């Protein structure tokens, strides 16, 4: 089996997601980069589950998927709510909390 290959792939995808999170300025694209990072972490978990023959890591990966769904639901609701007030989804425009 090629565990190290998949672990390196997961590291690369995680780094790509971090790059996107630093580079992007629209909230939507930022959230997408975070999703990419969560997914890369899941790939790492599943590769380790395969290597150890343990289903516990697969359970953890399932919880990560559920957390990502909750995060996206609240995140996108915030984006829509903020867009109504600010007419913008750029994070730099949201530097003050005053409505």
């Amino acid at each position, binding site marked *: 089996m090629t565990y190290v290959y998949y672990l390196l792939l997961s590291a690369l995808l995680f780094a790509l997601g971090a*790059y996107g999170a630093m580079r992007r300025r*629209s909230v939507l694209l930022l959230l997408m980069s975070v999703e990419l990072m969560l*997914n890369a972490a899941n790939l790492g978990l599943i590769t380790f589950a395969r290597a150890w023959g343990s289903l516990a890591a697969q359970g953890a990966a399932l919880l990560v998927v559920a957390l990502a769904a909750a995060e996206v639901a609240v995140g996108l609701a915030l984006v829509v709510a903020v867009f109504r007030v600010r007419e913008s989804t750029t994070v730099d425009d949201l530097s003050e909390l005053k409505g």
Partner: protein
Amino acid sequence: MNLFDLVAGVVLLLTGFLAVQSKNAVHAALALAANFIVMGTVFMRLEARFLGWIEIIVYAGAIMVLFIFVIMLLYDAKADLGVDPLPWLRLWAPGVAALLFLGLAWAFFGFKAPLDAATAKAALFGGTAQALGPVLWRDWLYAVLLVAALLLVATVAAVALVKPEGGEER
């Protein structure tokens, strides 16, 4: 290592790169959806069949459709807008990402599997729902209940956040 691993790796990296680099938000969302679908097949290859399907149904199905829906709703397809108040952060981004990758790669590189592949594969029972269910509902029960509560709260919060302000009671 076979042809599937190579092709899946190349597609994952390509779509991941497009997702963080695309100027058009719709293109980025579609690239990310493709990334999730290929990731689901990789999960199945790594003996996590149930999670592979969950990945495709929840991530590529629900989450990415939600993203595309919001992009269309807000007409927010542009990635770059206006002046950039933090130019140094964007300059440092490639270096920080490369450092992060090198650190992770350094940690992963000497990884030796504790079991031989056949024993580990037999212990996973293919990662089907029948194998994963008892683990989730026995060992991980409290975590599952907490995540369920979190999902419920998130759903209520999402509805409450987008409710029009000062709207009269119906």
